């Protein structure tokens, strides 16, 4: 078991910097999810920790050891790849045993560990099969098995569930989480799926364009997003953003509507309200022209525009609801549900 420290980490390919001064402290046994849109540098970061990419500058420590110069084999890590990267010419048993065999562990011990892992992952019946004779979910479990038999200090996952269908993905997500809690191994998990990120991570690192936007617990990210990017990325459906001007605690929207409790800000801001934090109130200041209602059963999603403007809005209401297109409905933000962001930098303004 080990902690991981990333200090001022930079990665550049030639002249293009793809990761900019990434900082992060990961404590022993923590499950960290790195999340962000495609191309933001998640895999690159993970592969640097694994030792598959060189570090341009900065340091990576696993435990108290700087591992920048260490070969992947010497970092005591295990990695699960997106395409699983199973050895096609070896049986499931050989796949799992391979890392142990190289480390010259005794035959009996290897057999014991492989079988133990196979039991945990319910792979017993498939031990003698080749990877091509397995389903996607089974292959995924073999890849997990190959990681856990090694009993490493760190698990690294690069979008391990993205090749599975939706149902299996939810199931495997739970299994990965349970497994990690049971083994208590420090883990870094890369995904671009924010739901996966929220449900799995003790803490999330949100990456955007090679910058760390925010690093915190799922609830911190949801309650106090540091930037408009995080605010829009975490939570589904995404937060509504309304340009506004604030003076003396009152925010004035584009259509002249005024909202109280706008905090200490002053001047032009971006106002953020989550769809689920708008409460229906006929006299409410936020008035929305309805375009479409999606009935999801447990709740209803109301899509429309802020009255008199072109700003798209989504409102989530519990239970069933129907409204004809073109009707105008009033809403009031729940207490303390207003987020204020600097209009230009997108940085959070604390109330």
């Amino acid at each position: 078991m080990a902690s991981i420290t990333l200090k001022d980490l930079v990665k550049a390919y030639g002249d293009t910097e793809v990761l900019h001064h990434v900082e992060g402290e990961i404590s022993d046994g923590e499950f960290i999810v790195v999340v962000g849109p495609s191309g933001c540098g998640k895999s690159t970061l993970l592969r640097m920790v694994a030792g598959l990419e060189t570090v341009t500058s900065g340091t990576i420590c696993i435990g108290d050891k700087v591992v920048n110069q260490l070969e992947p084999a010497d970092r005591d890590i295990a990695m699960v790849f997106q395409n699983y990267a199973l050895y096609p010419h070896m049986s499931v048993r050989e796949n799992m045993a391979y890392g142990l065999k190289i480390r010259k562990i005794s035959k009996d011990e290897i057999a014991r560990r492989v079988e133990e892992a196979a039991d945990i992952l319910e792979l017993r019946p498939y031990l003698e099969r080749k990877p091509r004779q397995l389903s996607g979910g089974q292959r995924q479990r073999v890849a997990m098995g190959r990681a856990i038999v090694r009993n490493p200090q760190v698990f690294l996952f690069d979008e391990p569930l993205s090749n599975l269908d939706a149902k299996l993905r939810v199931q495997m997500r739970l299994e990965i989480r349970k497994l990690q809690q049971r083994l208590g191994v420090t883990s870094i998990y890369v995904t671009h799926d924010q739901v996966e990120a929220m449900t799995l991570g003790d803490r999330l690192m949100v990456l955007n364009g090679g910058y760390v936007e925010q690093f915190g617990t799922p609830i911190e990210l949801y309650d106090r997003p540091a930037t408009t990017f995080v605010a829009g990325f975490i939570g589904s459906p995404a937060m509504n953003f309304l340009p506004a001007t604030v003076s003396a605690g009152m925010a004035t929207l584009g259509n002249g509507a005024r909202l109280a409790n706008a905090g200490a800000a002053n001047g032009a801001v971006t106002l953020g309200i989550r769809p689920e934090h708008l409460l229906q109130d006929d006299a409410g200041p936020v008035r929305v022209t309805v375009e479409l209602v999606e009935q999801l059963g447990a709740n209803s999603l109301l899509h429309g525009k802020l009255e008199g403007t072109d700003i798209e809005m989504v409102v989530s209401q519990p239970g069933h609801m129907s409204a004809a297109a073109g009707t105008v409905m009033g809403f009031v933000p729940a207490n303390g549900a207003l987020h204020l962001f600097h209009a230009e930098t997108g940085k959070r303004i604390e109330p």
Partner: protein
Amino acid sequence: MLKRVHFPRSALPYLLVAPQILITLVFFIWPASQAVYQSFLIEDAFGLSTEFVWFENFELLVDDEQYLQSFGRTIFFSAAVALLSMSAALVLAGFADRVVRGATAYRTLMIWPYAVAPVLAGALWVFMFNPTLGIFPFLLDMVGIDWNHYLNGTHAMMLVIFAAAWKQIAYNFLFYLAAMQSIPRSLIEAAAIDGAGPVRRFVDHIFPLISPTTFFLLVINAVYAFFDTFGIIHAVTQGGPANSTTILVYKVFNDGFVGLDLGGSAAQSVILMVLVIAMTVVQFRFIERKVEY
């Protein structure tokens, strides 16, 4: 049930394949059948009369000590050429696969030997190994080896093996490199994380995964050594000294055009023909079965 698609009958498809069929007939089928026909004839020493003798030429060959020796020599020669050129190509491709910078230049350089004509390749090696002028005999002399492939049959054999293998390295290299590059990167990375060093990764993963290519090249190289090395032998040793490098193809030429035993020579080429057909069949059978991991 498969539905059969019916096209209106027309002469066009036949016209389109006609040139191909014509070429095959004129340049392959006709000479081959001539060879088969010739192999049933015995001609007298002056070329004045021929006699149809059925399989007598073949019977003579089976009893001919020299022919059987040449057969054994050819098998040794092809095995050595295939082994040498394939292992050299494998090592070079292994390195090229890891090269990042200058990869294209390296690969281009590697391909050049393949563009050299066999006779020229032979001439090149003759020159380098010339006992009085060549650089290699000079170097070998320093370690106490007295190189002379004009007198020493073993030296001559080694030289033609080197020359023939060298020429084939480029071809093998290309196939090996392509095979290696089609192995998913992440698989090798997974092995690296599992603790396997470069050599171990090569032995445990890369080599088994490219085994279909190895098999394919084995057949190709054997066929090459059997049938395509005439130019090299002719340029380097002319089959000598004392027939020590007379492999089957060279013997066909020697017996037919030098010894003027046309019937015997034809019988030998028919045997070679059967061999090449057999090898090709083996290859297709296995390739189609797609080597399983």
